[in-house]
């Protein structure tokens, strides 16, 4: 069911990871991704995995939740893996049949690439699981603040993002409901060719759009009547402030990246 999608979901908690400033977590995620793409050999990879594992442990997010978040991407991971498996040439030939040859290097790259994608997603999932969307957008807004000088509407973008995240579950629920209602009238979303299927989506998409517009309209009215008038003069209940733990976490992140680069140089 659609409801099982966990993207952008937040699991409230009160762990060290939850308490970190969202800016710290955003930067750490970037560092983590950089490290992930820098690491090409085992030691570096092990370090990145260790970093993620410790973060997950500290956050007390169940591994099961991370895995279920990875589930929708399994096909992408598989395709990447298979492509790498078949198209990487190397020196150590393992199997050869018909026009396909698989090299040991191919196996290695396939595993690394698949792992890399999964680690990438797992890291970002951890970010969204432990950071409320509002904090996340606050953090982004604050990090991107310098862009205001070149007239990028940072506040508006951040507000739009947080509202979009707020309405994802609502719209998913609504999609489920409209789908059931149309199926009760004999709509068939499963069978038929591509064009038939696309056409069959109209009874779902049109009501969904209409409803999204209605919601947007009502939400705008509600926001205005709660005195919203843009970012000017607005304060925040949850002030972002960097604590000791944030600096320590960042230091750990920098260390991670440095080590990974070092390992890459050393080739271990």
């Amino acid at each position, binding site marked *: *069911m659609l*409801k*099982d999608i966990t993207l952008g979901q937040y699991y409230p908690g009160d762990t060290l990871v939850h308490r970190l400033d969202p800016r710290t977590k955003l930067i750490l995620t970037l560092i983590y991704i950089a490290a992930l793409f820098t690491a090409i050999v085992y030691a570096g990879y092990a370090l990145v995995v260790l970093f993620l594992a410790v973060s997950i442990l500290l956050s007390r997010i*169940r591994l*099961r939740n991370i895995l*279920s978040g990875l589930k929708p991407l399994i096909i992408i991971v598989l395709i990447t893996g298979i492509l790498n498996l078949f198209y990487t040439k190397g020196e150590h030939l393992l199997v050869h049949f018909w026009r396909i040859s698989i090299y040991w290097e191919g196996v290695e790259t396939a595993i690394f690439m698949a792992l890399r994608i999964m680690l990438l997603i797992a890291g970002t999932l951890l970010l969204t699981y432990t950071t409320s969307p509002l904090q996340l957008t606050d953090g982004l807004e604050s990090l991107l603040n310098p862009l205001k000088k070149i007239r990028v509407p940072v506040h508006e973008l951040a507000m739009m993002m947080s509202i979009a995240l707020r309405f994802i579950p609502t719209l998913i629920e*609504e999609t489920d*409901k*409209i789908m*059931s*209602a*149309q*199926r*009760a*009238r*004999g*709509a*068939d979303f499963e069978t038929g060719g591509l064009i038939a299927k696309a056409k069959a989506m*109209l*009874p779902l998409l*049109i*009501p969904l759009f*209409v*409803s999204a517009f209605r919601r947007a309209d009502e939400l705008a009215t509600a926001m205005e009547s709660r005195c919203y008038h843009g970012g000017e003069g607005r304060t925040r209940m949850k002030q972002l402030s960097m604590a000791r733990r944030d600096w320590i976490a960042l230091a750990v992140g920098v260390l991670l990246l440095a080590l990974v680069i070092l390992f890459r140089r050393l080739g271990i």
Partner: protein
Amino acid sequence: MTPVLQTVRLTHRYSEGTPFERVAVDSVDFSAQRGEFIAVIGHTGSGKSTFIQHLNGLLKPSSGSVLFDGKDIHSSKEFTRQVRFRVGLLFQYPEYQLFEETVYRDIAFGPKNMKLKDDEVDERVREAAGFVGLGEEILGKSPFDLSGGQKRRVAIAGVIAMRPEVLILDEPTAGLDPGGREELMENILRYHDGGKRTVIYITHSMEDAARTAQRIVVFNHGHIAMDGTPREVFRRGFELIQMGIIVPQITRVMMRLRELGLDVDDSVYSVDQAIAALRETKGGGDRA
């Protein structure tokens, strides 16, 4: 007589095999005879909405079965599809499912999916529209230009144009004002046609349930907690209140009168019944 709909130990679990698993409907045995008018009540989350979505095969039971005319509705794909048309299901706030350019085409959506011939579709659309009181001039309009009450009627017409033998409605009167509620209940009663068709509907309004249904089924924690005539059900007013169900005002007054020591029948739920019950206690009273 074979019941038109029957469930045998029907169980439904959401998010099976995940930490969020929960049983919404728990081993429910239920049957409806042809021609019955049944109200289903229960607080939010009691499982009643999940339950009725099984009755036309939209949801598949986790275990147990649903029978239509004695035959398992999931026995073949073909039969499941047939049942979907023979058991019409109208969701809550059905006006949000409208999508076509015109009212006419929206009402025709169901009949067209039944692969009926064009003139048959046409006949059914006009009949269904007339049934809910939508005039010819509305058929050509966009459903999005109508008022809320009219939209709801279009949605209802869209289901009854399929001429289902059983009509199931999930809170059809939610959000309507008293006038709109009255009209809609009349339409549903007319569709029931004195027992030619079967109607099952979920409602939060005990007054509506009491006024129209011959039988009330009370859901609580995924089980059927009570099943009987309105009088039988309302006689157990205190139990209903404990289940988070608000009993009709008249019943509440009568329950209170009993508490106050007046020997009055507190299974009544309508104004007329209350008058009769009060007369019985005294056979008179202080008339001026």
